[in-house]
């Protein structure tokens, strides 16, 4: 039994934490709130210097040729820091989609730039006003061109390319790869609950695109599940930070003559936050194992990681505000930055209801396999 990260993996997390701490990414997150910057270029470059974007990319394409497992500890630190960087869009989704499903030419064309952080990728799957399902994709891929509209697209304003889910004349939708600076692509920024993770609407009018290898809906679900695990690490990192913010405040803030952290109403609540965080961390670890070992239970493991992490960050962020009292409700407090990130992370890769459905499917399969 070695249900833990290696010393090297832990060291990568610590290195990432030191780098991000020195940059004060919360200040950058506030700048995104004020609309001054779309993301933190300096944090993104700092991550590139550590090899964050290159971890899973093969060495022949300028990467480190490691496993997504080697990215998890750093992902937790990105979450903890609240750094406004396109980690989810570029590193967890787009990069992995091209690496796992792209043709050799597509990998050679895009992965080196993604690896050094100079190219930012994203994905464009959901469409407004309709639940994202295999049968509901309206964006069309016809004769090498995309037609339709996608929103919300994470980092859609700054991204250089996107993996676009599109219907074809065949039965099921496929994944396509589209350069976003091409003619026929229009970008419009949409206001996000969490401006440190900005979103856009992308409109395609005969925009040139190509199929991403032979990737179909099933490939999309795989990409989504793998990214959900890495996002879960970000959520757990942020939830930890929110918990310790609340704890630190509860030690210093006094009411009725003593620290509020000495009242059981506060102590027991923070103990409950801790418990949810630890359950989420355990599920995230299992998700990491499932990705690294290509386990049959990947969808169930990813659902567990995503559901537990979403629950943990939602609870930690809301109770962090509550513990801070009136101060927690102010713009000046950092509490709302975590509250924003919590909702954004809960929705961006699909809502809880979708992942509970996947979990039930996985549990049903597991029960049937033990009964048969």
């Amino acid at each position, binding site marked *: *039994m*070695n*249900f*833990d*990260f*290696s010393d090297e993996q832990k060291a990568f997390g610590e290195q990432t934490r030191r780098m991000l701490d020195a940059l004060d990414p919360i200040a950058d997150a506030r700048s995104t709130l004020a609309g001054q910057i779309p993301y933190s270029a300096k944090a993104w470059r700092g991550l590139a210097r550590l090899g964050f974007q290159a971890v899973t990319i093969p060495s022949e394409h300028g990467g480190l040729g490691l496993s997504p*497992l080697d990215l998890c500890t750093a992902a937790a630190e990105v979450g903890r820091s609240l750094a406004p960087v396109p980690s989810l869009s570029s590193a967890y989704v787009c990069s992995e989609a091209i690496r796992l499903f792209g043709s050799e030419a597509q990998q050679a064309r895009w992965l080196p730039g993604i690896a050094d952080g100079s190219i930012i990728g994203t994905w464009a799957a959901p469409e407004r006003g309709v639940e994202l399902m295999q049968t509901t994709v309206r964006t069309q891929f016809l004769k090498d061109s995309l037609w339709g509209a996608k929103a919300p697209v994470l980092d859609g304003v700054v991204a250089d390319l996107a993996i676009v889910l599109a219907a074809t004349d065949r039965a099921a939708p496929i994944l396509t790869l589209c350069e976003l600076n091409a003619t026929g692509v229009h970008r419009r920024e949409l206001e996000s609950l969490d401006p440190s993770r900005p979103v856009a609407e992308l409109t395609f009018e005969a925009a040139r695109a190509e199929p991403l290898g032979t990737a179909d809906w099933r490939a999309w679900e795989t990409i989504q599940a793998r990214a959900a695990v890495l996002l879960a690490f970000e959520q757990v990192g942020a939830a930890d930070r929110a*918990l310790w913010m609340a*704890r630190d405040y*509860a*030690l210093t803030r006094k009411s009725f003559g*003593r*620290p509020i*952290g*000495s009242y*059981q109403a*506060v*102590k*027991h609540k*923070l*103990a*409950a936050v*801790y*418990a949810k965080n*630890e*359950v*989420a*961390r*355990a*599920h995230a*670890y*299992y998700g*990491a*194992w499932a990705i*690294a*070992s290509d386990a049959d239970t990947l969808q169930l493991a990813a659902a*567990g990681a995503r*559901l*537990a992490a979403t*629950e943990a960050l939602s609870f930690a962020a809301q109770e962090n505000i509550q513990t801070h009292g009136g101060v927690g409700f102010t713009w000046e407090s950092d509490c709302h930055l975590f509250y924003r990130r919590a909702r954004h992370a809960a929705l961006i890769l699909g809502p809880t209801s979708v992942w*509970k459905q996947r*979990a*039930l499917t996985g*549990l*049903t399969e597991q*029960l049937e396999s*033990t*009964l048969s």
Partner: protein
Amino acid sequence: MDFEDTPAESAFRTEARAWLESATRRRGTADREDAISPPPLSERLAAARAFQRKKQEAGFAAITLPRRYGGRGGSAIEQLIYLQEEAHFENFGVVEIFGVGIGMCIPTILNNGSEEQRARYLHAAIRGDEIWCQLFSEPAGGSDVAAARTSAKQDGDSWIIEGQKTWTSGAHFSDFGIITTRTDPKAPKHRGMTVFILDMRADGVEVRPIRQMSNETDFNEVFFNGVRVPDSFRLGQVNDGWSVALSTLMHERAGIGGRSRDLGWRGLLHLANANTMNGAPASSDWRIAEKIVDSWLIEFGAQLLSARGQTALSKGQAPGPEQSILKMLKAPLLQQNAYLAMEILGESGLLTQAALGDAWREVENAWTFGAGIRIAGGTDEILRNIVAERVLGLPPDIRIDKTVPFSEVPI
């Protein structure tokens, strides 16, 4: 990251499994943890003692205990691996009967006892010759272990014990107990306690069974009327009993918190597949299905947390603080699972196994045991305090009784 044994662990697991195959039989799927009509206590005790002796002779009875006291001198990870393997086999109730003694009393004597005491008691307990219980809780103090009012007064080279303990598991079949007593009522509560070994057959010890809400009797009230205990039975220094008691409690929570065959998500999903709601399997109704997924999240999360603890042990490290939440997670879950199972059956959910069949006993047990396990071995509330204070470093509760003489603390 993996879930594999190291070569040494794998070899130990094979050895343990091979021994279990030879010494007992694998549990079948039809076996239930709690037999519907259990054999008489005397028969159960005889079977447990016989299996415990075989375990001890094979070196599996107290794996981490030094060899000179009858243990194996093994590691914590070996202990865990053995228990994982034993869970698949008929073990004749040894956990219920010897768990308190070997899990709590024996480590307490090992850590606090004299060499004579260790030599006298450890081996006999591990062999199953002598059964132990823990006499801490009193009518006026369960969570508040340091509030013991049972008194011990010195009389020559012995002590006279007066008072009452309660919630004592297994007192009715125990040979010895570890008891907390008040030896200096003028001192503050934590500084006037002394711990003794108590012969449960001494004159003046009276055990009365407590009938639980489940209609079972696992624990007891124990009364002491002028019970004489030699000073050689004292554990640790006079009035230093609190530190001895703490060392016992440290071993308690590790052993409590859900049994392997408790009602879990598998049982719930199976039930939901087999029963209909709105004319379709209940598992396709999201009012039910969502609760099953939520239950799995906690159950499997707790299992993964245990795997993290096992990893630490495997590396020869102490398990992390996250292990302290396991009981806090699992105990309330059991109650919730029972409610959900009953909900799936609709009105019929209010019937008992007498009408619904033997398998329903699992649900009834979860319902009653779930309520009890949230209290036993540290209530949910005490556990939250422990996490808040020891893990998060929040201030202790204000205690008005901590510095005043115990005799002045209001009852």
